[in-house]
């Protein structure tokens, strides 16, 4: 065993805990606007991910306690729980958490070796398999009818565990990106005034903008602590904002959405700071990470503007993950003083 007398900076367990801490502002905003269902989804997905991780570790003959202790499975579960609609039926979170661990993570070698981001791969699987359930988001708190209270633990639990009883289904509402997508004839300004979501919002849609700002806050904290590389989110958000500005078309009815809508709706900030920055599935070099961010930004905008889904963060990140080995090959930094060599294959 080696001695490291100078001491170590931080441990990987601390890293995971720091990321979980940084998620709190966004989670709090989600809770406030969309009810206690958020918490239940996070707990369900987290428990499913932890349980599946334990099973996978046991099957692979690895130490279970140490494996669960690194916090990575919990983080995956929490990210999936955040991405799911707060009132989605329980088996979505449970099957998603299990899928993330048993199909996406461990068959590829477990921690540090998975090709795809487990939370996003699980979300994409659910979205493709159950598009209807995944698009059913409740109305944010300010838009609930007078007689509808904030969905507490009891009401949310009822909707999640007994999905047959449709007591809260009545207040389900299109997400901002889906609502904007359905706009065919109004100018952006007219649509913003007409749609209740945008009419009540400051920058974009009410509730969603706050949630995104919450994740932005946590993300900035992580970037300042150097836990994540700032290049990926900055590149992604810049690219997305720039493309949205270019295709905004001056706010005509053909607009793909103004930059504010794209930056502060859907899973943009969560994706930028917590999903795309997952180091395991991200390129290794600084330039590679910049490239990954740009790629995700382009893909998110393309899927939202011209694709078949209102939001595209999960698919964009998965496609980027797929490109990482190639990006890694092409972006090996040049050590100082050395000369770039012509494609020599022999060592």
């Amino acid at each position, binding site marked *: *065993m*080696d*001695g*490291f*007398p*100078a*001491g*170590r*900076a*931080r*441990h*990987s367990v*601390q*890293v995971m805990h720091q990321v979980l801490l940084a998620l709190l502002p966004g989670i709090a905003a989600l809770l406030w606007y969309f009810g206690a269902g958020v918490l239940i989804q996070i707990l369900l997905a987290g428990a499913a991910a932890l349980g599946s991780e334990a099973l996978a570790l046991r099957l692979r003959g690895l130490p279970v306690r*140490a494996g669960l202790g*690194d916090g*990575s499975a919990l983080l995956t579960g929490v990210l999936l729980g955040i991405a799911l609609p707060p009132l989605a039926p329980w088996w979505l979170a449970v099957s998603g958490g299990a899928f993330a661990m048993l199909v996406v993570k461990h068959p590829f070698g*477990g*921690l*540090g*070796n998975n090709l795809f981001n487990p939370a996003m791969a699980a979300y994409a699987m659910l979205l493709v398999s159950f598009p209807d359930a995944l698009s059913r988001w409740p109305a944010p708190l300010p838009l609930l009818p007078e007689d509808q209270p904030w969905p507490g633990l009891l009401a949310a639990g009822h909707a999640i565990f007994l999905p047959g009883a449709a007591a809260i289904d009545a207040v389900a509402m299109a997400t901002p990106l889906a609502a904007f997508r359905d706009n065919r004839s109004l100018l952006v300004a007219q649509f913003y005034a007409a749609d209740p979501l945008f009419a009540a919002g400051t920058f974009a849609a009410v509730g969603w903008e706050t949630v995104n700002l919450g994740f932005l806050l946590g993300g900035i904290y992580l970037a300042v602590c*150097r*836990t994540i*590389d700032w290049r990926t989110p900055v590149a992604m958000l810049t690219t997305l904002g720039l493309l949205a500005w270019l295709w905004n078309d001056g706010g005509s009815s053909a607009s793909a959405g103004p930059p504010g809508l794209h930056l502060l709706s859907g899973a943009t900030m969560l994706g930028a700071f917590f999903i795309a920055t997952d*180091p*395991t599935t*991200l390129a*290794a*070099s*600084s330039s590679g*990470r910049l490239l990954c961010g740009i790629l995700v930004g382009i893909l998110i905008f393309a899927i939202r503007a011209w694709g078949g889904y209102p939001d595209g963060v999960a698919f964009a990140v998965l496609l980027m993950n797929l490109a990482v080995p190639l990006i*890694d090959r092409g972006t*090996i*930094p*040049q*050590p*100082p*003083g*050395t*000369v770039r060599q012509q494609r020599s*294959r*022999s*060592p």
Partner: protein
Amino acid sequence: MSARRRLRGGVQPPSHKAASVAGPIRDLPLPSLLILPLGDNHLLRAPGSWVGKGEPIADGSGLPVHASTSGFIRDIETRAIDADRHGPCVLLEPDGDDRWREPPRPLPIATLDRAQLLEAVRAAGIAGLGGGGFPTATKLAAPAIHTLVINAMECEAYVTADDALLREAAAEVVAGIGLAAHILASAPRVVIGIEDDKPEALAALRNALGGDDIELTVLPARYPAGAERLLIALLTGLEIPRDELPVAHGIVCLNVATVHALQRALGHGEPLLERIVTLSGGACREPANYRVPLGTPVADLLAASGYERERCASVLLGGGMMGRPLADLQTPVTRSTHCVLLLSAEEMRPTPPRTCIRCGWCADVCPVALLPQQLHRHALAEDLGALARHHLDQCLGCGACDHVCPSAIPLTRQFASAQAALAQLRADRQRADRDRDRFLAHQQRLARAAAERETRRGEAHPATPGSDLAALAMARAAGAGASREPLERTAAAAADRLRRLENQLAELDAGASAAQRNALQARIAQARIDHDAALRRLASGSTDAGATH
């Protein structure tokens, strides 16, 4: 030229330096045995003979080895010379008098030319004392040097040997810098780089410099800014790759301890016999710097400082970042030993390594822009091609990545063995290429000879038979002559060897053991047999040749 750049990456580990520079440099009692690595040299004095302090006892293609104190040469044995290497060592038993053969005298520097000065530096056994161990005379012999960089950085955790030296002997260091510049003879610009975490040393250096035309650059303390090439880049803006030497770019970089040794050698006539070693660590009762005679076993150094085996979890040879665990405490202090660390169990923190999560912090701190996480991955896969593509050979082994790795992976150790594997692969490939080339050349030679025989036969038949026979006889005679030559050489070499061994036996004085005498006599007997055999072969070769005529 003076473009000052920031160090790329790097870390700021706790320095742990204060304890060992609190007091003055201490002297060590003479050990009972000195172990002097022989290197590529041969012994100048026979085992058993008495040598005076400062007397050369071995020389050859390496740097000369001097007796660090007066005493008797005991033997040559294979001993540990480093944390992970063994080699032949001269064992010197001090007589306790510490008596010079002849008292050291300053050299008449002004009257000596460059070649004489360089030979004096070599003869004094001076090599880089910062850890590199590169012969200083070789560096100073380089032509057209425009910049002399003096390294006073000492960025390694725990190590304060240079700091202590500057505090106590800054004037000698400055004199040494002047000598180095004088020997370079190209009036180079002189720049000293020193970190800002040793104000006392800096003040002493400033004081000693006075109005000298030497630049002093204070740099923020950041590990590993003191690595030779990184310091050169920081001070001159010139980036030198790992596979090229700074002298090829007109730069010589010398450590402060090295220029101090230069001044002792030329200004006082003392060869390099001792160096300053920092003894520190949490399990060290009295952290301090010691003036240690070269060849002192680490065990004696530990004994002098009150070493307690129970408290000490590990002994490291080297500083906190790059030091390596020392298995054999009889390993001697050499020119490149700047620190010995006694670590307590708490300091060791034996964290079991976890899986790499590719967080990339290692790439952020790597001073030469490598991607340690990718190197780690490819090293695990033993993919030497990918390792070469990721510039494994540029790794300095500084340990900055080890320091920040949240999964506690021993990265540099892994890279060192991967580097060895890569070097081995390249060497194997080169040898295979050379063997193939030789084989092809041999085949071509055979084909050519066969073709020549054919043509000669074709020409011979139409010509007169008499002349053909004569030509054949002449060719045979020439062939016999050619075959005689190697035989004569062998015989001459055997005779030479026999003579040398007999001389050795004659020189063997009374102090030699019976075993030594017997061994030498056995070798003489064997040499005589070889010699007779060679003579016989030579004689029979001549008779064969004679029979053909």
